[in-house]
């Protein structure tokens, strides 16, 4: 089924705009969310948005620019590396804090 949609904007621009909104959403979440793990997630969303802008603006009528694609792949790998490190810091910090003060069991919930 392909509806005769007016070509108001090219696919490239559509995804680029989506990327822009993702950046905004992620940024808002980063500011308003207090928990570092959630902030880490937000940062990943921002990153995804940036990659989307980068890639989709290289979307030509016939082909998609390979350079932005390569840059995006590099970016994704760098992002995962940093995410792993960030997650590790968050966990270790929580552990040291828990070790510092005797853990009270009432706020420890069972795994769902």
């Amino acid at each position, binding site marked *: 089924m392909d509806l005769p949609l007016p070509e108001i904007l090219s696919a490239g621009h559509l995804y680029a705009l989506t990327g822009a909104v993702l*950046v905004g959403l992620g940024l808002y979440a*980063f500011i308003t969310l207090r928990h*570092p793990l959630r*902030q880490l997630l937000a*940062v990943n969303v*921002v*990153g995804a948005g*940036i*990659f989307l*802008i*980068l890639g989709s*603006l*290289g979307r030509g009528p016939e082909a998609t620019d390979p*350079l*932005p694609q390569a*840059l995006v792949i*590099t*970016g994704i790998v*760098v992002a995962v*590396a*940093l995410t792993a*490190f*960030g997650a590790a*810091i*968050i966990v*270790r*910090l929580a552990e*040291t804090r828990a070790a510092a003060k005797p853990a009270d069991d009432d706020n420890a919930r069972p795994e769902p």
Partner: protein
Amino acid sequence: MSPLDLVVAVPLGFVVAALMLGRAARGLILLAAPLMAGLALWLALLPPDAAFLVGQWDLPLGILLRADGVARLMILATALVIGAVGLHALAEPPEKPGHAAQAETFWPLVYLLWAGANAGFLTTDLFNLYVTLEMVSLAAVALAAMGSLAAALRYFMIALLGSLAYLLGVALIVARYNTVDVTLLAQVAEPDLATLLALGLMTAGLLIKAALFPMHGWLPPAHAAAPAPASALLSAIAVKLGFVILVRLWFEGFADVTGPASLQVMGGLGAGAVLYGSVQAMRQQRLKALVAYSTVAQVGYLFLAFPLVAGAIDPGDAWAGMTLQAVAHMLAKAAMFLAAGLMLKAAAGDRIADLGGLAQAMPLTVTAFGLAAVSLMGLPPSGGFTAKFLLLTAAIEQGAFLYAGVLILGGLLAAVYLFRALSACFAPATTPRAPVTGGFRTAEPLALAGLAIVMGFAGTALVELSAIAAPWDAPAAAPAVTLPEAAP
């Protein structure tokens, strides 16, 4: 063989070697320090037009490495600083007592920082700079984490945000101009919405990394808590890469896009940093916190120089002042952190009031601290003086008396808080202590501080070095390349 790739490839090789050698890796620095110093020297002595395209792939696709004056000076200083700090770390274990993981991972991280910093100083490619920026941030955060996890997490999050802002800017530039090479952008950049937004985003991100007031919040806790060698590397090198990239953007790639107003903003922030950082440093009770806040102040001078460089008829003086300030701060601040580390080991506590009697107990270390202080205060003879002297001359010649005033006041404030620490060392010992046997570990801070002083005598040579292939000197130094027609 060219030092342009070796200064990056060799430290990467040391990363590999360090990981393979495990605990035995600490000895590698005995090889790395002289080797890298040699390479850096070789680089500094290359003919002025030294540059090459990695893999011989032409712009706009490939990556251009270029040894301009800034790169040469920064890489040389980096080699000296990391070399000295590394040798110091041999005698003064950087890790917390009994912390085997830190003891072992310290070394690969240092080499990673080394490679990342050198790569960043050399490349003119904005995306390549992103990767190096992340390399340096990663190592820096890990080093900071050896002191305080909480501070490191804060540092990590802020740095991540900065990187993303920078990356978004780069993304827009790629899409807009189909190139990320500064030398090409210098020829094609136009002040349209996309470009200005991109420049703004990149600048904001880098200012966070460079910890310019008011984006400095993460720095003092991280730098004050980390072990002395780590603090030295963080303050000396990690914050400098952001600054160098900003120089590339503002004075080369987008020199025609940035307006005088925006330059004044940068200068204003710099001035604010000088004053705020100094006042905060005065209010600190703990020695390392004082030194960390002095970094906030010293970074301010780098950006205070922006309008002076842009406003000068012959920017040579201001440019040299800016560059030498960066170099002098690297040497002096590294020396000061190492000395502070030794002093705190010997002192009763980590407060300035606890330093009493150190002037007798460890004169050489206190001397190192004092010499570093002289350079940071900008008193002659020292690299710090040469830098601030050049900046002050430029400011007065341009009638920028506000900046001149800040430069002078900043020096005085620095004197206030640094002499406060020094005179505490002259006070009688709060607890009786025997002279600390110095030996090898006192040599490095003394050497670094000595270099900061010696810089004051080599002024002319350094100024000439800093001017090599400077953007204001050789406009359109880039190889003429036809870009695929970008958007109108």
